[in-house]
C-alpha cells in the first residue's frame, strides 16, 4: 500500500487524487505517508568520521558507518579481510591532500564493531586528516570516510609569528579563505 502512495506522491498527486485512486480515506493516506517518512528518516543516519582533540597530542576518532555503506564498499572493492578495517591518520601539513601526497601516515587496525579510537603522539603544529577504510584484495588502502582536518597547537607560543603575515592579510582582505584550518562550523 505505502509503495503505491509513495509512487503517486512522487508523481505529484494531491491527497484527494490519491484518496480517490486508491479508495482509502485521505486521513489514512496521510498517516501512512507520515509514518513512512519518519521511518525513512531513521534510516538516514549519517555516515561520518569525526576527529576531536582530547589534548594537544591526542585525538579522539569517532565514526558511524552504516553496514549498508560498508556492504556497498565491499561490492566495489573486495576486502582482504571483511572483519578488519583500517583507520589512517595522514599528516597533511601545508598540502592539498590528494590521497597520495601525505607527509606521513599511521595505520591502525580496527574491527568492524569498533566505532572509536584514541590516537596518541601527535606532533606539534601539524595538520592531520583521518580516514576509515580497509585493505583490498590487492593490499591497497581503500577509504570510505574522511574526517575534517585538524591542526595541532604550536610548539612554542611565539610560533604565531609564522602565520602573522597571513593573519594580517586575512584581516585586511577577508574574502579569500584563510590559509589555515578552521572550526568545521565555519563555512567557507
Amino acid at each position: 500500500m505505502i509503495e503505491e502512495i509513495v509512487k503517486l506522491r512522487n508523481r505529484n498527486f494531491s491527497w484527494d487524487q490519491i484518496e480517490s485512486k486508491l479508495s482509502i480515506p485521505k486521513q489514512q493516506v496521510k498517516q501512512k505517508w507520515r509514518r513512512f517518512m519518519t521511518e525513512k528518516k531513521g534510516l538516514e543516519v549519517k555516515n561520518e568520521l569525526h576527529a576531536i582533540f582530547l589534548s594537544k597530542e591526542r585525538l579522539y576518532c569517532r565514526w558511524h558507518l552504516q553496514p549498508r555503506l560498508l556492504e556497498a564498499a565491499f561490492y566495489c572493492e573486495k576486502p582482504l579481510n571483511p572483519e578488519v578495517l583500517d583507520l589512517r591518520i595522514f599528516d597533511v601539513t601545508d598540502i592539498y591532500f590528494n590521497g597520495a601526497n601525505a607527509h606521513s601516515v599511521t595505520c591502525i587496525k580496527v574491527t568492524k564493531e569498533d566505532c572509536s579510537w584514541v590516537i596518541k603522539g601527535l606532533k606539534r603544529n601539524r595538520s592531520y586528516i583521518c580516514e576509515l577504510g580497509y585493505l583490498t584484495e590487492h593490499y591497497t588502502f581503500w577509504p570510505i570516510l574522511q574526517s575534517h582536518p585538524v591542526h595541532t597547537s604550536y610548539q612554542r607560543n611565539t610560533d604565531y609569528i609564522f602565520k602573522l603575515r597571513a593573519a594580517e592579510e586575512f584581516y585586511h582582505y577577508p574574502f579569500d579563505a584563510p590559509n589555515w584550518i578552521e572550526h568545521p562550523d565555519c563555512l567557507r
Partner: protein
Amino acid sequence: MKVSFSNILMADHPFRPLALAGSTIDSEEIIKIMNVYGCLLAAANQAKPGKPVTAVVNLFVLGWLNGVRGKMAVNTFIDHHDHHMSADLLRSYDGSFIQAFKDLIHERKLLLLPVSLSHYPLTAYTAKGAASDDLKRTAAVWKELFGAPPASIWLPRGAYMPGIDELLQQAGCQFVFLPGDAFPLEEEPDVHWMSPRGLEIFPYEAENRQGNSQSAVTLVSITEENACRWYADIDKKQTVRECSSSSAKRFIHFPLAYENMNKGQELITVEEIQRCEPILYLKEEWDEKCRSAIYEAGGVLDLEWAYCIYAAIHGFEEELASAVDSLRYLLDGARKEFPDLDYAHQRMRLHYGVTLSSEKPVEHIEKMEGAVLLLTWEYPPNIVGGMARHVHGLAESLVSSGREVIVLTASHHESPHYEVVKGVHIYRTGPLHKGERDFLKQTSDLNLCLFQKGTELIREYDVSLIHTHDWLTGDAAVLLAEQHQLPLVATIHATEHGRNNGLHNELQHAIASKEKALISSSDTIIVCSQPMKEELRVFYEAIEKDIYVIPNGVEFEERVSGSTRFSHLEPFIFSIGRMVFEKGFQTFFNIHLKSLKKENIQFIIAGKGPLLENWREEVKKRGLEDRIHFVGYVSDEERKALFQSCEAAVFPSLYEPFGIVALEAMAFQKPVIAAATGGLKSFVLHKQTGLLFEPGNAEDLSEKISAILNKPDFAKELGLNGHEMAKELYSWNHISAQTEKVYNQTVFIKKMEGVRT
C-alpha cells in the same frame, strides 16, 4: 574596548534544578546561589563607574532567577535573611537579579558575560553546526534577559580554534577571553591582541598560577565558600591594570588553545565525550516542523537539549535523566503534532526563565490590523458560567495591548445596549423572545439578532476578524464571517460530548451538530487544554483544523455559591484527578488518621477513571467509609466549591508532568500539599507556596497534613503565596499575547487562501 580588566569573577556554581526544586529558604542550594550571585551583585554595587566588576555567569542560573520560581525564591530568601549582603539591593529591585544587574551594567559598574549555554567545549562538538548554534542560543537567551547581545561569551575550558572568532562575531560579541598559555606574554607584554577577523582577545590566567602573571587578567573562581571572603577584600582585588592606549595592535593566529594546554592537561576526556555523545545525537531527532508544532514555545526543545548537554558534561546523572525525560516527552508530543504545550510553557517560564519567542517565526507573519469582534452569549455583569469572565479578561487585556475590541453579546436587563468599559466597546442585543422555553430556538433567536447587529458593526468598524466563544453564538459568527469574508476564530471552552460524557438525547445531538458546524467553518480553533484538543480531534472530526492550545490557566474567581452536596462533610481535605494508579490516591489509605488533630477531618477525592470502583471497595474493606470519599465525577461548579471550602488540597501523584490542577487550588488561596514529583515540584515550593512530601509515602503525607491543620496561620500564608504564583503564571496579558498570535496567524492563512483561489 573602553574598560580594562583586572580580575574576572567566575561564578561557576553549578545549576542543579533538582536540588532547587522543592527547596526551602534554608536549603543549601538556595543559600549557595544567593551567596555567589549576591556577592557579585554587592561587589558590583560597590565598584566605581568605569571600573566595573567583570564576571562570568551561568545562563541557566540567571534564567532560573528570572523565572517565576526564582524570583519568588529570592524574595522569600531576602525576607528571611535580612542581613544578607545583597538583601537591600535586591529588595529595591523586587527580588529581580536581572533588573539589578541591568542597572549596574548601565552604570558601568558591572561587566557581565555568559558562559556558552551548554558549557561544552566548542572544539569538541561532533554535530555539524552545534557549536555555532550553542553560541547563537547563548546570545539569544542573553538578549532576552538583558535586551542586547553579550559583549563576549566565555568559552568553556578556554577551548578555541580558528573560526570560533567568526562564530563569536556572528553572535554579536566584541571580544573574547582566551587562555594566556597561547600567547607569548613574557616576550611581548604590552600588546593588544586581535584575531585575524578583528575580534579583540584578552589573555587570562587562572588565579592559582605561581609567579608573576603577565596577562592582563586573572580568573578568580567564586564558589559559595570563598564568595564572602572574596567580597570582604574586594578593594584589594580590584586593582585595575590600565591598558595603555599606546599598546601595539597585533594579529595572532594559533591552531588550538585551551586552559592549561602547555601543562599537559587534557581538554576533554573520552569518558566525557562518550557521556555527551548520545545527547548530541538527540538533536538530530527534531527539525523545524517539531519546533513549530510546539508553536510559540518551540525554543523549549533547544533549551532542554542544551541543558541535557550541560548536565552530561558535568556528570549530573539525576539531572541528566530528568532533563532527557523532559525532552523526550516534549519531542514525542511534537512529533505526533500533539505536544504538551502546558508543560512546554511551564518549563520555559518556571525553569528556564525565558521564552525565546523571537526564534520561532518560520515565516514572517504580519501583525493583524483593525478590530476584533468578540461574540459571546454572556458578558459581565451578566455572568452565568465561566465564559463571561474569560471573554471579559481577554477583551480588556487585548485593549490594553492596543487592539480595538468590540464585544457583541446578549442583552441584559441591567445593562445598556451600548457602553464602553475600559476601552472595550460592548453591544448588547437579543434574543427577541426571552421567555422561549425551547433552548435551541431561543439560541437561534439570539443568533439572528447578533447577526443583524454584527452586520451593522462590521460596516461601522474596521473589523478584521471574528472571534466567537462556544456554539451558543456560533451561527451568528459563521454567518458574519461568510458574508463578509472575514477570518473566524472559535474558542471551544467545553463540548457537549465532554459535558455529558457522550451524547444521550436529541438535544445533546442537536447541540453537538451545531458545535461541529462551528468547528468546520472556523479558520482556527482555540482550546484551553490539551485533552480538549484531543477530544475535538477524536469526537468532532477536527483533525484537519488548526487547533491552538492557550491554557486558560486558572480562574481567579470571587466566591462561588458555597453549599454543595458535599457541604455536610466539612471540614475536609480535597483531591481531584483521574482515577489511575499514577495519580497516587492509594496513598490516602495508609495515612495516620488518628494522629490528625482534627479527628473529624474528611477526605474528598473527586474524579472518574478505571480504578474508581476498586478504590471505593478498598475504602469499604478498610472501614474508612466515614472518612475517605471517592465521589466520582464533579461538575465545574462543584469543583470550584470544593476547592473553595476545603482545608487543603492534596496531590499525591506518583507521576505528573504538569499538574495544572495544583495551580487551580492555589488560585483559590488554598494550601497545597503535593508529592515531590515532576511538574508539581516546580511551582510547589516547599514551605513557600505549599508543602511537598515524598511520593507514595503516607507517613510523610500525614505529617504534612497535620502541619497544615495545626498551624492555620502558616496554612493561610502558603495559600496566599501560592495565589501570587498562580497569578503570575497565568496572567491575562500572557493569554492575550498568545491570542494575538493566533489572530495574526489566522489572518495570514486566510490571505494565503485568497491567493490560492
